[in-house]
């Protein structure tokens, strides 16, 4: 555990570059508090503070008017909108892949749900007069490679996706300015997409006539093309790869935590959450007999299709060991695989198992 600057106690992965995971207990809340929201940076060259007065978001490239926007400009000259959206690291739960894969060994805490407030990305691109001939838009933050040979972290979206009205240049998270470690002062919010696109400390947007070329789009964050859940076989890796995109459907156990002891003959409530890439959760089912039969969980009210949705299931345990399983299905009918694997450990959404021991006190 660690107490990062401006945060409460979190699970330490690395402090250079800063990578911290949210303890599971906070997932009993609808919104993940800012001071425990997971932190993921690739590049160690991170500013230790950002001057609100001199900070500018630059918009350039294939536009009619280049923009240099202050925080005040964004807050006063544009429409402000809010969206509830879950932010999930592509590699969340990587440590649960079998066989194991190299990378940041996250458990389930490299995700969080927040209410994001800011300016629609579309409005900023329109203000700049981004031309109709544009194909890609790139996003760069203030984090810097510690060596010139290390590729800068720049991500891109197709112009059509950038203009779809969903993306946000957020200056608030749960009603407060973003913590520095979560990308203060601006974070690109791409509801429904994995967090690799949610560029923090965003200070540069560029519009391109052609395809954007960059290491973090062409070589990193790739998944096997045309497969479900980014699945591939360890013995014959996919040849065709494509940039990771939408969040796949998933449910997670939150409470009680794995290998807990529970009281037999007393109602026990299992709690968890479910999420997907924006279609919305249709149902969550739980099995207490290793997947033979599935029982519907109670869904909490929806907080919007991009938000996660909490669920619960109450049963009276007998005196024995339990291995519970949970699976979610979205409104498109997509559900979760029994087994899943890919070389990079992305998009983990295998059906989870929770081990419990029920005892008479």
């Amino acid at each position: 555990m660690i107490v990062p600057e401006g945060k409460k106690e979190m699970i330490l992965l690395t402090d250079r570059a800063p990578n911290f995971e949210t303890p599971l207990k906070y997932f009993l809340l609808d919104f993940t508090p800012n001071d425990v929201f997971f932190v993921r940076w690739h590049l160690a060259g991170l500013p230790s503070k950002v001057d609100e007065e001199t900070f500018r978001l630059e918009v350039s490239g294939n536009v009619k008017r280049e923009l240099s926007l202050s925080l005040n400009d964004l807050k006063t000259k544009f429409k402000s909108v809010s969206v509830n959206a879950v932010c999930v690291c592509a590699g969340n739960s990587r440590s649960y892949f079998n066989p194991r894969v190299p990378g940041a060994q996250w458990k389930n805490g490299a995700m969080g749900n927040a209410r994001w407030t800011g300016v629609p990305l579309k409005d900023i691109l329109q203000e700049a007069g981004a031309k109709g001939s544009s194909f890609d838009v790139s996003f760069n933050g203030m984090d810097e490679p510690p060596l010139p040979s290390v590729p800068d972290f720049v991500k891109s979206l197709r112009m059509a996706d950038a203009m779809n009205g969903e993306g946000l240049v957020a200056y608030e998270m749960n009603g407060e300015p973003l913590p520095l470690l979560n990308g203060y002062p601006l974070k690109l919010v791409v509801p429904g997409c994995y967090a690799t696109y949610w560029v923090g400390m965003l200070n540069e947007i560029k519009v391109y006539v052609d395809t954007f070329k960059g290491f973090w789009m062409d070589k990193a964050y790739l998944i096997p093309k045309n497969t479900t859940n980014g699945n591939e076989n360890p013995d014959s890796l996919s040849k065709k790869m494509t940039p990771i995109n939408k969040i796949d459907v998933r449910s997670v156990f939150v409470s009680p935590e794995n290998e807990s002891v529970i009281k037999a003959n007393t109602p026990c409530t299992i709690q968890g959450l479910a999420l997907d890439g924006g279609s919305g959760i249709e149902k969550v089912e739980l099995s207490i007999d290793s997947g033979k039969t599935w029982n519907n969980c109670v869904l909490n009210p929806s907080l919007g299709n991009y938000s996660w949705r909490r669920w619960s299931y109450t049963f009276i345990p007998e005196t024995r060991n339990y291995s519970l399983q949970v699976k979610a299905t979205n409104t498109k009918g997509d559900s979760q695989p029994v087994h899943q694997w890919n070389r990079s450990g992305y998009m983990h959404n295998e059906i989870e198992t929770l081990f419990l021991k029920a005892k008479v006190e």
Partner: protein
Amino acid sequence: MKKKKIFFGVALVAFATSCSSPKEEKDFSKSKNETNSINFQSEEGEELFKANCITCHTLQYIDMQPNFTRKTWEKITDKMIKNFGAPIPDSTAKKIVDYLMAIKGKK
């Protein structure tokens, strides 16, 4: 040692272009660096790790990995050099792989 100095010199130039005042050794945590938790089996390996790897990431990145085969550690080291731009000569890379095998090797 000379190479190490050049590393940080270059790094500082890169930082100077940033629009705030970042510090090269900014520590975002209140905890001690956890590299002490590892039982170093190779002093040379540790020195090479410090000289070649921690500019971008601490030994925690290795510490959290499961044990991998030599082939996997070679692939990872190669990726650090070719994809992530770590300026490490082949002869040093081999010694770093030996070190990674010593602390997180799967036989």
